[in-house]
């Protein structure tokens, strides 16, 4: 059991990296990766929300949708749960710990439309994961997201000081960096797990 959970974490975080090989959460990956500090905060918020929402989505699917034969409503139910969860987390943090809220709060609204969150919930159901496996997969995926967005932010901080040819300024050079990172991450596919 322990080794298989470890396997899920390695697979979701590195081998099938959510951003660089699944293309989920690209919007914030390209948008909020200007500085290492902010991207790390976003990463922490994403880890928190994805882990929580994978668990809740898994429970809802197994104990509400399956018994009622309403599996086809998964998309509607999951997106509403995620939106509600993000709101609750935001209100909870605002009340209980203003320090964390100030650091992470501004990213929370961006996370509702982060397709990685809904993507993980749907993939978990597709893969037939139980509650513990879903939470683990959610955590692993979010760690993979954080790794790649922080790495990209590190690259972009250096690109800022380089003189990039004019047509490549802005989005193209960021996408090129992501392409090179994606090639590097393809190496993990060779891991024999």
């Amino acid at each position: 059991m322990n080794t298989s959970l470890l396997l899920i974490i390695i697979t979701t975080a590195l081998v099938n990296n959510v951003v660089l090989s699944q293309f989920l959460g690209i919007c914030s990956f390209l948008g909020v990766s200007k500085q290492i500090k902010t991207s790390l905060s976003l990463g922490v918020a994403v880890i928190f929300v994805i882990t929580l929402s994978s668990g809740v989505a898994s429970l809802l699917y197994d104990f509400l949708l399956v018994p009622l034969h309403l599996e086809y409503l998964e998309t509607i139910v999951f997106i509403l749960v995620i939106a509600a969860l993000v709101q609750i987390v935001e209100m909870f943090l605002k009340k209980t710990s203003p320090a964390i809220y100030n650091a992470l709060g501004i990213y929370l609204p961006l996370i509702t439309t982060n397709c990685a969150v809904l993507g993980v919930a749907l993939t978990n159901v597709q893969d037939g994961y139980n509650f513990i496996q879903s939470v683990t997969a959610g955590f692993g995926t979010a760690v993979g997201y954080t790794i790649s967005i922080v790495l990209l932010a590190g690259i972009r901080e250096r690109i800022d000081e380089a003189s990039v040819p004019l047509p490549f300024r802005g989005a193209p050079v960021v996408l090129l960096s992501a392409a090179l990172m994606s090639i590097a991450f393809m190496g993990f596919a060779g891991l024999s797990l």
Partner: protein
Amino acid sequence: MNKYAERIYNGVVKENPSLILMLGMCPTLAVTTSAVNGIGMGLSTLAVLIFSNLIISFMRKIIPDQVRLPAYIVIVASLVTVVDLLLQAYAPDLYAALGIYIPLIVVNCIILGRAEAYANKVEPGLALFDGLGMGLGFTIALTLIGMIRELLGSGKLFGFSILPDSVSPIAIFVKAPGAFLVIALIIAVMNALHIKNNSADLVKGCDGCCNHCSKSGCQNEYKEDKPV
């Protein structure tokens, strides 16, 4: 040009969602391994976008402002479920190829973005044509990217072999890095053309704030009081 044709032109050329606004990048990168997949994804999104724009425009005076986002999400998610079930029934091959990206149309920034930036402010006719224009722009961009990647990466075009057997295709273009690479180059070429024509607007993405995006830039309230 009348105002309806202007909406189509706006969506396809002036504010092309994929190539100018850089919205909906997840499917743009993920499903464009072939031209057919690009068209399939584009048309599915087009269908959802037309109906979501239309419904949201009809209901713009009924939906209270405070709960508008959850209301939009329910409308969009219902439409996506319909498209999902239709594809599953009538186009199983395409359904299998697009996989998880079909339900993920719900969180495609283009749809909530258009609802928030346009459809909830105008009459249904204009909203419909805006959805049509944006959807067509998205479909054309995805098909174009799909054609380039399919040709370079597997030597085919719409499933038919184009290149002679002696030329071996560059497989990386149909793998993950190829997606980033092709889009980076397309945008760079467009930028180069803009620079040549002395037009100042380089392609700029939205800073991760999908639901509040239009060409004028980011209007996310969370960003205005606290810059990220």
